């Protein structure tokens, strides 16, 4: 009996309506909050969270005041799945057969004719929905929600900035940084231990099997300015080593604007069983790697934009952009790049332009813009999104589901008229 009530609660259409209404309110207040908090903070605190918290100014505690994006999406997902579990709602044997057959046809075309990996995935999804006897409209919505969650968790977005003639085998995060401890002892290669900024902010002591020392994070500032002379409200660097020693720093508030970002600074001490190796101030503003030698190995320390290395490299051959006549408004950008991959011997030229990205190595390289300070530098947006196909498959499922539903009603109506 109790189970029936639970099923009734989670399958209720009312719950769907409440979730959708809450989602609308969340989007509305999230949009307003962007004015003060900025897009990225709102994304993480409103939409990529289970609750929206309210923290009084200066208080060390916070209380949840509204469901976050994950909670609303999660309940909506349960609502859709539970509808499938309720046998009274939908039997749909014939629809399942239609969807399954459509999936098999798509799979056959994909394998035998078009050789399309994407169409094959779409067909397989249809077959799965048919086998599970999920109502296709619900199946599409479930896939859409799960796909978005997967995108949220698994997709990585970065930027590749290239000047003409420049070659790079890595892209960089737009905002996130990392502490790179690089063992530079070998003549041809470097071994990198990259520690994300979130870890520096969270942990006081960081150790790793590949590091011969432990890193004690004395202070981590999410955003800071540096100066080479004492100034009002600046603190003297407590660093004892290298160029981070004779500097002054000041903590800055977190930025909220879209076109600027935080520049973190950390004060770290390296500890070994034999004692301390010293204290360093690392900041992205210090572009020169700072060195330390321990056990005959030389390590370089630097806080830098997070890097995503690739098994291939891109060289910018030519970057061009047109402006609308008589204005500085860009009309068209294009980057002619050379893709080089040592392990396969691949070496070819590709033209990347607006709406014509390069899809390569599981990533998509979009022409994003150019450096306003130096028009010869192209900026490519690099997106790795394993779930990029899910919205397409979800929309196809919903469309097929709507057509089947409409057709079945139409056929029923026509046959009734005929019998009448």
């Amino acid at each position, binding site marked *: 009996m109790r189970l029936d009530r639970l099923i009734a609660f989670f399958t209720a259409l009312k719950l769907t309506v409440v979730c959708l209404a809450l989602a609308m309110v969340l989007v509305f207040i999230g949009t307003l909050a962007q004015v003060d908090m900025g897009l990225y903070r709102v994304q993480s605190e409103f939409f990529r969270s289970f609750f929206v918290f309210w923290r009084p100014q200066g208080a060390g505690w916070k209380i949840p005041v509204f469901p976050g994006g994950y909670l609303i999406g999660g309940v909506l997902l349960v609502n859709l799945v539970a509808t499938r579990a309720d046998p009274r709602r939908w039997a749909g044997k014939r629809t399942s057969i239609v969807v399954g057959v459509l999936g098999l046809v798509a799979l056959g075309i994909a394998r035998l004719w078009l050789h399309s990996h994407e169409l094959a995935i779409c067909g397989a999804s249809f077959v799965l929905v048919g086998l599970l006897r999920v109502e296709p409209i619900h199946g599409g919505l479930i896939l859409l929600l799960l796909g978005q*969650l997967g995108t949220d968790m*698994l997709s990585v977005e970065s930027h590749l900035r290239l000047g003409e003639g*420049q070659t790079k085998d890595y892209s960089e995060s737009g905002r996130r940084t990392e502490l790179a401890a690089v063992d530079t002892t070998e003549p041809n290669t470097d071994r990198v231990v*990259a520690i994300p900024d979130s870890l520096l902010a969270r942990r006081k002591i960081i150790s790793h099997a590949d590091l011969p020392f432990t890193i004690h994070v004395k202070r981590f500032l999410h955003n800071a300015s540096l100066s080479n002379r004492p100034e009002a409200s600046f603190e003297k660097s407590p660093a004892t080593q290298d160029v981070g020693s*004779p500097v002054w720093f000041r903590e800055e508030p977190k930025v909220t604007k879209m076109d600027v*970002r935080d520049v973190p600074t950390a004060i770290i001490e390296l500890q070994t069983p034999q004692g301390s190796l010293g204290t360093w101030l690392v900041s992205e503003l210090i572009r*020169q790697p700072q060195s330390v030698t321990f056990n005959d190995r030389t390590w370089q320390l630097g806080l830098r934009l997070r890097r995503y290395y690739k098994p291939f490299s891109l060289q910018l051959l030519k970057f061009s952009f047109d402006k609308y006549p008589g204005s500085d408004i860009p009309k068209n950008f294009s980057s002619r790049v050379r893709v080089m991959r040592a392990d396969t011997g691949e070496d070819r030229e590709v033209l990347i332009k607006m709406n014509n990205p390069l899809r390569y190595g599981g990533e998509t390289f979009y022409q994003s813009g150019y450096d306003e*300070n*130096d028009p010869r*530098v192209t900026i490519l947006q690099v997106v790795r999104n394993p779930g990029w196909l899910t919205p397409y498959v979800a929309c196809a499922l919903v469309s097929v589901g709507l057509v089947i539903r409409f057709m079945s009603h139409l056929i029923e109506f026509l046959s009734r008229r005929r019998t009448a």
Partner: protein
Amino acid sequence: MSALALVLVVAGCGKEEIKVYRVAKEKPGSPVAANPHAAAVTGDDRRSMPPGESAPGKPAWTVPAGWAEEPLTPMLLAKFSVTDQDARASITVSAFPGDVGGLLANVNRWRGQVSLPPINEADLAQAVKQLETQAGDASLVDLVGTDASKKNRVRLICVVLPHAGQTWFFKMMGDELVVAREKDAFLEFVQTAKFPDAP
């Protein structure tokens, strides 16, 4: 319930961990990796710290006769001084990511250094001249004012050169007469700067 459990499990996957990998050494002289989106702070001396001799991206140049190399402070790539009896001028080179707050903010900061009042955007075009260099188009700022502490006449000339996502500052500041005498040598020095990625 299983769907909610899945949401919770996937949400837990977003944890960031330490990564270890091996890469080929970066070639010295490759352009400095620029920062997309400039920092919020203003003032060129707060933006960046010095790459030393082996740091990537430092241009090659020809130092004019009579300029003495000075020890570097953390924010500078190069520092020189030139003297004439008691009079003196210093020449510095620095580079910072992004546009360093924009040209107007920097011009007004320099105007403050020679005790001149700030100007607005409308007056900027008159205060700045365009200069063609080997590495691209640059802005030339030439200011004459007084030193707030010594009360003597000082002159400040700065060439602002955007290059490969960085803004380069070639700056000469000092006694008016010395700066006037060294102006041609300074501009020639800027013209000799050849960046590592230049053809």
